[in-house]
């Protein structure tokens, strides 16, 4: 089956082209972010990002080589192994910036929380493909998927990496709502949520409440997050319609932007390419997301459909959260912009997602005969 000629015939060149365009735009912006200003110590990060794309490419090919049916079979192993890695991070992990997120494997450090995103998608897709029905999930049916989500969620919250934990929660919620929840269960969950939030708030300590307030409203911290958002808004806004030009961004060059090569890279892009550039980037993401949903639509198998939706949701949520954050629409959370932000784990995860989508897409004929 692996060498079926139709696999080549059905290969989704369009998706690959979209990803190449996005990556190209991303690498160009990263080049600007790491070299402009001359004082930046990040020059070699650009070369490293190329290397990560190479690793990502291998991971992508590996992800579509075997049928996604194989992925379904291995779902448990992937899920348990991933949680093992998360546990290992908490015990042996490398401390950096006050949190423990990386696991040193020889010369490279990996971030198991990135793998966890994909592992949760796979295990939930398998569960829902077996138990979903047109009436929607009952409360009883939701116990297992909740447990599947909460284990890695809590392990990641403890690192602490609230951004990634939140993304996992959102993906799980998206997939669950996609397969439908029973009306009364949905109402029950919403009501419980509304009641428990004030209760939890009441039990939090003063400083914890402060932290959450600042998180929700960065203006409360004018020397930290609030200042970053102002500088980011100045960078984006000052790009105006046509942008300041490649390598001409002043906010970026003078290091006014925090983390300009990772979380705030969208601001660099917006400053240099203006409204035209941001529109192109937003459209590229929009097309990529719609493409993913189209693959889900074209798939004739429950697991493949739900898996595609999950993977697309991951890309969508990361892009949405990151862009909303740097534009001051959302709290400041450390979520990278897919295909653009610097970071090996993020790039490899995104490429694996694309590999999974290609996988589902190129095997759709297998079910058409049925």
């Amino acid at each position, binding site marked *: 089956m692996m060498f079926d000629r139709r696999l080549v015939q059905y290969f989704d060149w369009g998706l690959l082209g979209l990803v190449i365009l996005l990556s190209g735009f991303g690498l160009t912006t990263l080049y600007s972010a790491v070299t402009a200003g001359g004082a930046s110590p990040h020059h070699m990060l650009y070369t490293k990002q190329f290397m990560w794309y190479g690793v990502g490419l291998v991971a992508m090919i590996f992800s579509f080589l075997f049928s996604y049916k194989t992925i379904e079979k291995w779902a448990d192993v992937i899920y348990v192994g991933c949680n093992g890695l998360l546990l290992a991070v908490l015990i042996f992990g490398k401390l950096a910036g006050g949190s423990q997120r990386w696991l040193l494997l020889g010369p490279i450090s990996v971030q198991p929380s990135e793998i966890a995103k994909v592992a949760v998608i796979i295990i939930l897709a398998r569960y829902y493909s077996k138990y*979903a029905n047109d009436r929607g999930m009952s409360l009883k049916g939701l116990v297992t998927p909740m447990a599947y989500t909460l284990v890695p969620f809590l392990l990641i919250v403890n690192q602490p990496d609230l951004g990634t934990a939140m993304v996992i929660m959102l993906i799980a919620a998206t997939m669950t709502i996609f397969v439908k929840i029973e009306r009364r269960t949905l109402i029950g969950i919403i009501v419980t949520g509304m009641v428990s939030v004030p209760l939890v708030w009441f039990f939090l300590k003063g400083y914890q409440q402060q932290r959450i307030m600042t998180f929700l409203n960065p203006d409360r911290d*004018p020397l930290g997050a*609030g200042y970053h958002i102002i500088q980011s808004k100045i960078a984006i806004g*000052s790009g105006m319609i046509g942008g300041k030009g490649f390598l001409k961004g002043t906010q970026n060059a003078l290091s006014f932007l925090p983390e300009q090569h990772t979380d705030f890279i969208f601001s660099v892009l917006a*400053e240099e390419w203006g409204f035209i550039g941001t529109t192109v980037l937003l459209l590229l993401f929009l097309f990529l997301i719609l493409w993913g*949903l189209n693959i889900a639509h074209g798939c004739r198998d429950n697991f493949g459909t739900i898996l595609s939706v999950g993977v697309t949701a991951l890309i969508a949520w990361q892009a949405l959260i990151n862009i909303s954050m740097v534009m001051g629409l959302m709290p400041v959370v450390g979520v990278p912009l897919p295909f653009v932000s610097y970071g090996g784990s993020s790039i490899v995860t995104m490429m694996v997602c694309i590999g999974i989508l290609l996988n589902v897409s190129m095997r759709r004929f297998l079910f058409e005969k049925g």
Partner: protein
Amino acid sequence: MKNYLKTVNSDWFNQRITGVIMCIAAVFSVLFIRVFYLQVMEGETYRRLSENNSIRLQSVDAPRGLIFDANRSLLVDNRPSFDLGIILKDAKPLDETVAKLAGYLDIPAEEITAKIKSVKGVPSYKPVFVRRDIGRNAMAAVEVHKYDLPGVTINIRPVRHYINSLHASHLIGYLGEINSDELASKDYAGCRGGDYIGRFGVEKSYENVLRGERGGRQVEVNVRGQVVRVLKTVNAQPGKNLLLTIDEGLQKTAESLLSEKAGAVVAVDPDNGYILAMASNPTFDQNAFVSGLSHDEWNALLSNPDHPMTNKVLQGEYPPASTYKIVTAIAGLEEGVVDENTIFNCPGYYALGNRVFRCWKRGGHGKVDMYRAISESCDVYFYQVGVGVGVDKLAKYAQAFGLGERTKVRLDNESKGLIPTAEWKRKRMGEPWQKGETLTIAIGQGFNLVTPVQMATLVAAIGNGGTLYRPLIVQAIETADGGLVQPGTPYIAGRLNISEKTLALVRKGLWGVVNGKKGTARGSRLKGVEMSGKTGTAQVVGRKEGEELTKAAKEEVAHQFKDHAWFVAYAPSKDPKIAVAVIVEHGEHGSSAAAPIAKAVIQFYLDNKKSEYQAEKSVSYVKIPNNNHQITNNIQ
């Protein structure tokens, strides 16, 4: 294929996907609108703001908490340090600005240029500090010519000022610049490179209390880098103030009595464990640490043979000598080895097997009972008590008094001391305990080691009737505006489980040391009030008999081999208000070198306390009706 759309038909999934697409469309619309708003509608405004990089952050340092003595006399405060900086982006043309600055300040321009070049990685909109603590006059010179010096800034940073430098240096301590390891650790969250943190004494152990929280301002600046508007301010939170337990006057008295000597004095309040004075000599100048010590100055402090950087009250370990007889006496009485009527004959020596152990009084004390044994410090009496009690039981009593363990006073590097047992010796030296060693232990020589603060705690417990208080150095923590954060509540570390009779007999002996006809410290009687105490003379090293030394060498080493002088005391004898431990290194005799210091410290304290006490009492007689008397007394 088997479960292919078993329960869910594909049309139904299509409907769900349509729902998702609607959501995506909605969210992307919001993003497009936002981008349009920021870049097209408000673009001009943001472009203008970006042109000068006009929104900047300025940091505002938090003043460190002040330190007061028990009577609210200020010991440590902060003074402004004027730090001269240049913001390279604004200082244009740079060479001209540097030349002018050099002229106004009388610093060679090369020095400024070299400094600017040496600093790397500072963003061009942040100041490079050319010189710190330039003084008021230089600051004024720069401020006057402010408009001539674009990009030149004066940053005001609070630095520590030790009002009585050289006093209580070991207790209060000093600050040092934070290092990279500390910056990375969670304990120093909120600190930045260049910050100063506590490195010694209270400054270190109360670092988290004294350190404030940095504030800052978000400002808009013009092309010249001058602030046009303050957009937002986060006020710096000053650190909390400490009210120490020490009495400044008593501290100075103790220190002056130690001058020219190496040693330590510690005074505690027997009723709560408050440390009233903590002096260790030689000492060091804390203000010298404010601007940073040179390498040579630091080395000189470290290599001084009298260890000025050691707080001898906590870190100094000495054999307790005869002061240890308090422990031996209690152990003997409690274990029933002796009682108040037991009489031993002291011929000046005690023979055990074929060894002879001498009494310090060569001619002997004759027939002695417990009272005379303590007050005249008869070694032969205590040899026999020691043999009867045995090394391990003796150790048990010593440990019950807190010896051999840290008192847990909240200062770093406290020493434990050492209380030997048979087990300890076997482990440590691989040899069994010798009976003769029990004899030397019983009179406080040999392996025993104690710190002055342990001895002060012990003698305070004897004075107050058996309660061991943990020594406290801070009476209260207060906010900058005077609100009480935390009172220094006395902490009872233990109670001596001994009979009234034993305690009374030992206290009588200690009274006799000072007030008895043949007491060893009779020369240090106080005027008008009775003091109880115990002398001690600690052998520094066993000089080998018959060892030949040249005369010059003898003189040279003579001082180093002189005995340490101990005196521990409390007063007034009946209801003590102060307990003191004094050690004078190489002071030879407790009675002549240490007891007079203790006497003077106690005299000073009680004289001042007495007037205070009487003043309060007279006030209460005048203003408060008789039925409130009881309450007034309780407060006192």
